[in-house]
């Protein structure tokens, strides 16, 4: 099922790219477009497992989340790899906080990225600028557990062969 979803989406993305190129720059239509889909995206879910290493030290490592139970913290990581020969710019990664999960405060990270949050998937703002209006009409800053989407805005282009990484933690309710 995963594979099916992936290939379908990849096809759609490819079509989108070709059409976009054709529409914006008819002159280049005769030359082969840049490889469609310069970014391959991978999302993984992992959990932190504490083990004892050879020296008897407790170390934490990430292992694939095989099964989840309420209260468990899952680490969601998206990697966007540039598989083209030229840099890509304005890289933005959007990742929803999955249904039935609660974002762990201050857990979003991404080197070189500005991170903004949303309560509806449309309007994004920095954490301290995200406001909500309560039933009684008073306004306040949104709580992290209210976030539904996270967006990473990468400040610099991603060079060929490099990747952008966006990660957050969420707890299963």
């Amino acid at each position, binding site marked *: 099922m995963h594979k099916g979803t992936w290939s379908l989406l990849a096809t759609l993305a490819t079509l989108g790219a070709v059409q976009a190129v054709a529409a914006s720059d008819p002159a280049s239509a005769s030359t082969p477009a840049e490889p469609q889909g310069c970014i391959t995206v991978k999302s*993984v879910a992992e959990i932190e497992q504490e083990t004892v290493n050879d020296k008897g030290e407790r170390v934490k490592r990430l292992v694939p989340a095989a099964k989840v139970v309420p209260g468990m913290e899952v680490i969601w990581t998206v990697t966007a790899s540039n598989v083209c020969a030229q840099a890509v710019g304005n890289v933005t990664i959007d*990742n929803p906080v999955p249904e039935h999960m609660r974002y762990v405060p201050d857990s979003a990270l991404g080197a070189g990225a500005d991170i903004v949050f949303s309560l509806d998937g449309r309007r994004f703002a920095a954490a301290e600028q995200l406001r909500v209006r309560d039933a009684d009409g008073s306004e306040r800053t949104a709580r992290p557990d209210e976030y539904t989407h996270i967006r990473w805005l990468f400040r610099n282009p991603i060079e060929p062969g490099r990747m952008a990484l966006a990660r957050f933690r969420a707890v299963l309710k």
Partner: protein
Amino acid sequence: MHNKPKGLGSRPVQFALALIALAGVAGRAEALGVVAGTQIENTAQVSYTIGGTSVSTASNTVALTVAEVLDVVVTLQSATTSVSPGATDQVLVYRVTNTGNASEGFRLALTSVLGGDEFDPLPAAPAVYFDTDGSGALTAADTPYTPGANDPVLAPDGFVTVLAVHDIPSGLANGARGFARLEVAALTGTGAPGTVFAGQGAGGTDAVVGTSGADGEATGQYVVADITLAAVKSATVTDPFGGSRPVPGARIRYQIVVTATGSGVATGVSFLDPIPANTSFVPGSITLNGNPLTDSTADADAGGYTTTPSAAVQVALGDLTQASGPQTLVFDVTIN
């Protein structure tokens, strides 16, 4: 002295001895999580520009299935039960709550041969019932439990009230205690928290033992408490002419002395004395051990005068032991 007003007859003092059950707040030990079998899905979107063109692409979809957590909490619902030697069908009340995240069956077991007490309550046959009618007491409507035949299947956060029924051996000393323990285990399995039963959870998910170990227990106790309450009532009549004749307008002062005798505790003793027919309660006349009580039954003091369902003086004497000493209640009525 003890002239009875004509037509009043003898009025027995009425007692209501009530065991105060522990507050029924047990059960929900913790917030329950997402139900087992739920799919947790995530797909990320990436957009970027290359050569002045905007491109958007989606990641693979990660799907996680929520496994079943096996958890149970057992709580004792009844206070220490006071019993007499030789008493039969004495009841302890327990509540079994499924604190896991899937519907789960549970096996119940009752043990009364335990250390730390002075006697072993004898399990009745059958010894475990479901409190089918929700009365908190053993009644004909309650369903007996047979292990393996009607193990309770509880929804997440669901609970069942269980009655443990014992007979009390005879020849026991006052104050002797007998413990009985209800043990409950998830049918899927028990073990150290984190133990996995692959594929055995709800809907084919894995089942994982929760913090309770997927089992639980609670211990109740019986205490032999021979305690008797005696109430002695007397009446003094004062007529409007300075005599003691029970004529209309005469005032009758009733005095009731309640005394507890024995080794135990009579819990939640309440006292209700109807106002005799053809008489009227005299407002502000109630005293308990010489201290006035207001007529209101809604205020903080121990008693008052009520007209519902019928005219009566009612006083809560609380828990009484022999050491409490005699409790003296006084109130007045006038003959109509």
